[in-house]
C-alpha cells in the first residue's frame, strides 16, 4: 500500500472542485439550518435546478451567462414554490416536503416526456465549453510530485473557491446586519420573534431562497466541472452529504462549511485509498470486493453523521449553547 500516494490523493480531494461544491451546498444549508433553523432535506433540488438551468439553456443555444442566470432564477422560483405551502409547518413536515420535492424534480427531469429538453436518463453533456475557453492558465500540469492538477482542474477550482469566498463575505455582512439577527432570533424562538412584530414567514422565505440560490451555485459548479448533468446524480444522498459537511464544521458558523468540506473530502478519499490499498494487498481476503468499496464509504458517512449528531452536534467550530438540537 502506497501511503504517500493515498495521502496526496486525499489532499487533492480536500481542495478539489467537489469539495468547493459541497462547501457551497453546505453554506446554503447553513443559512437554512444553522442560522434560521429550517430543516431543508431537499438541498439537492436546488442543486438540480441550478445545474439543469445552466445545461438546458446552453444546450438550447443560449450563452453560458444566461444559463447561470436561468439556474439562479429557477432556484428563486423553487424557494418560493417550496416555502409558501410549507414554512408555516413544523420542522419535521418541512423535512418531508423538501425531500419529496427533490424526488419529484428528479423523476420529472428523467421522465421521457421531457427527454427532448433534459435528455431524460442520459442527461446533457458538453455544454460548458465557453467556460473552459475563458481559462487563462496555460495548458500543463501544476504542483509538485504526485500532488498536481491540470490547468483545466485548476481553473474550475479557482473559480469554485473564489465563489465560496465571495459568498462567505456576503453572508458575513448579511448575518451581522439586523436582517441576520432576526434570522437567529427565529432560530432561537420563533414566537418571541413574532411577538416583536417581525414577519417570521417572510424572513423564512428569504432565508430559504438565499440558501437555495447558494445551493444552485453548487449544482452549477459540479455540472460545469464534469461537463455533464444526469438526473441520477442528484439523489437525496447529496443533501445528506452536505448535512454531514455542515455538522462536521459546526452549524451556525460562517466558516463551518469550508472546514467541513475539506475534512470530509480528505477523509472520504483517504478511506477509499486505504480500503483499495488493503484490497490489493490481499489483507481483506474475500471479505469485500472492489465494487463494494463505494458502498462501504457511504455506510461510513452514515455512521459518521450519526456519531457526530450524537456526540458532537456543534461540530468543530460551533458552540453547544447556540444549537437547536437540544429539547427546549
Amino acid at each position, binding site marked *: 500500500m502506497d501511503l504517500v500516494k493515498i495521502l496526496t490523493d486525499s489532499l487533492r480531494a480536500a481542495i478539489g472542485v467537489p469539495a468547493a461544491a459541497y462547501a457551497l451546498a453546505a453554506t446554503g444549508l447553513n443559512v437554512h439550518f444553522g442560522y434560521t433553523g429550517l430543516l431543508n432535506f431537499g438541498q439537492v433540488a436546488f442543486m438540480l435546478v441550478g445545474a439543469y438551468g445552466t445545461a438546458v439553456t446552453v444546450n438550447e443555444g443560449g450563452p453560458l451567462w444566461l444559463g447561470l442566470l436561468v439556474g439562479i432564477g429557477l432556484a428563486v422560483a423553487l424557494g418560493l414554490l417550496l416555502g409558501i*405551502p410549507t414554512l408555516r409547518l413544523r420542522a419535521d413536515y418541512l423535512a418531508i*416536503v423538501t425531500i419529496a420535492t427533490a424526488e419529484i424534480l428528479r423523476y420529472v427531469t428523467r421522465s*421521457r416526456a421531457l427527454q427532448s429538453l433534459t435528455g431524460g436518463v442520459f442527461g446533457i453533456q458538453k455544454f460548458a465549453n465557453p467556460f473552459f475557453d475563458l481559462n487563462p492558465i496555460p495548458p500543463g500540469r501544476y504542483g509538485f510530485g504526485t500532488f498536481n492538477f491540470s490547468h483545466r482542474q485548476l481553473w474550475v477550482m479557482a473559480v469554485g473557491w473564489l465563489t465560496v469566498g465571495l459568498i462567505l463575505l456576503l453572508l458575513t455582512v448579511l448575518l451581522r446586519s439586523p436582517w441576520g439577527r432576526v434570522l437567529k432570533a427565529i432560530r432561537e424562538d420563533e414566537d418571541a420573534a413574532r411577538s416583536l412584530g417581525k414577519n417570521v414567514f417572510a424572513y423564512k422565505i428569504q432565508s430559504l431562497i438565499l440558501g437555495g440560490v447558494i445551493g444552485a451555485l453548487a449544482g452549477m459548479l459540479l455540472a460545469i466541472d464534469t461537463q455533464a448533468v444526469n438526473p441520477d446524480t442528484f439523489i437525496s444522498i447529496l443533501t445528506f452529504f452536505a448535512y454531514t459537511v455542515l455538522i462536521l464544521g459546526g452549524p451556525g458558523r460562517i466558516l463551518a462549511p469550508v472546514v467541513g468540506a475539506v475534512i470530509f473530502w480528505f477523509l472520504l478519499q483517504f478511506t477509499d485509498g486505504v480500503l483499495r490499498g488493503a484490497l490489493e494487498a490481499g489483507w481483506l481476503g474475500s471479505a469485500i470486493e472492489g465494487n463494494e468499496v463505494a*458502498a462501504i464509504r*457511504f455506510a*461510513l458517512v*452514515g455512521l459518521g453523521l450519526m456519531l457526530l*449528531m450524537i456526540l458532537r452536534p456543534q461540530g468543530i467550530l460551533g458552540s453547544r449553547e447556540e444549537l*437547536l*438540537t437540544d429539547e427546549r
Partner: protein
Amino acid sequence: MPPILAYIVSCFLLLGAPAAESIGGTLREGGAQGDPVAGVVLAVSDASGVVGTGVSGDDGSWEVPLPGPGTYRVSLDVQSLPEGVALRNPDRTELEGVEVRAGQRKSVVFPLGERQVETRSWFTRLANLAAKGLTYGSIVALAAVGLSLIFGVTGMVNFAHGEVVTFGAVVAWFFSTSAAGPGLHLLWAVPPTLLLAAALGAGLERGLFRPLRRRRTGNVALIVVSIGLSLLVRHIYLILVGGAPQPYRQYAVQTQISLGPVSMPPKALFITLVSLAVLAAFGLMLRHTRLGIALRAVADNKDLAEASGISVDRVILYTWALGATLAGLAGIFLGITQTVQWDMGFILLLTMFAAVILGGIGTAFGAALGGIIIGVATEASTFWLPVEFKVVVALAVLILVLMVRPQGIFGVKERVG
C-alpha cells in the same frame, strides 16, 4: 450514441463468461433496435420445479445459471412487465422444451411490443389497476402503521423506517434464497424473519433512541440521527445483497387467475387478504387490549399517561417492536410482489410518508387507510399518466394534503404548526 455503447460493452465485460450452462437473453421493446426493458422477472424450471430465476437489468439482459445440460421451461412473469409493454403474443408466456447442451449459453427470445390495440374495456383496465393498487396499498399500509405509531408515541419522524422494511425482505431472502442461507421454503422463513424484525425494532429503541431521549436530544437531532442510520444500514444491505434485484426462489412467477373482470396472480390475492387481516387484527388489538389502550393513551398525551400509571417507556418499546414487525412483513410481501432490492425500503419511505400524512400522522387507522388510498391512487394514475410518474403522484398528494389539511384525515389539528 457512444456513451451508451461503451456502457453496454462494459456491462458485458463485467459479466464475464460463466463457467457452466445458462439460459439468457435480452428483452427489448419492439424488435432488436428497441428500448431495453428492465426489471422483468423470468424463471427457468425443469421437471422437478424451478431451478433458477433472473431479472432483466437496465440494458434488458438477463441470465439464469443452470445446474446442467437438459431440457428446460422458461417462463416470463407478465405482472413484472412495465405498463404499456406486453408480449407480442400474449399466450406465449412460457417457452417449453428449451434444450441446452453442455457448456452452452442458450439464448431465448420473448418478443415484446407496445400493447396491441387495447381489447379490454376502460372499466376492465381500471378495475385491474385498482386491484393492483389495492395489493400495493395494503403493503404500504402495513409498513406505514409502524411509522405513524412510532411518531405518535415518541414524536420522532423515523427516516430509517424504510430500512426496517428492507430488513424483512433481506432476512427472508437470506433464509429462503441466499446461497449462504439454510434454504428454507419462503413460508418457513417468515416466522424467524418477523421475530428478528421485532428484535431490531426493540433494539433500536433500547440501544439508540431511548438513551438519546434520556439525554434530552431534540427532535431535529433525532431526525438527523435516523437519516445517518438509514444511510449506514442501507449500504450494509448493498454490500450483503448486491446491487441487482433478487427474486425469491418461491412464488416468483405464477399463472394469473381471474376473478370477474380482474386477473391477478394468486400471490397478489393472498398478500392483499393477509395484509388486510393483519391490519384488522392490529386495529382490534389497539382498541380492546390493555397494551392497545395504553399505546393510544401515550400517543394522545404522554404526561397524562405517565401520571395515570402507564409505563411510557415500556409502551414505546412495544410500539417499536410491533411497528418493526409489521414493516418486516410488508418488506417480505414487497419482495414477493416485486423483487428484493437493497434500497426498496428507502424508495418506499416517501410513499409511506404520503400515506401517513394523508391519514393523519400519529394515528394507526389513518396510516392504514392513507396507505390503501395512496396505493390505489398511484396505480390508477397510470391509466392517465406515464408509469414513471407513479411516485410523483404519491408525493403530489402529500404536498397537496399539507397545503389543504395538514392534520390529515384523522389527525388532530394542534399537532401541526
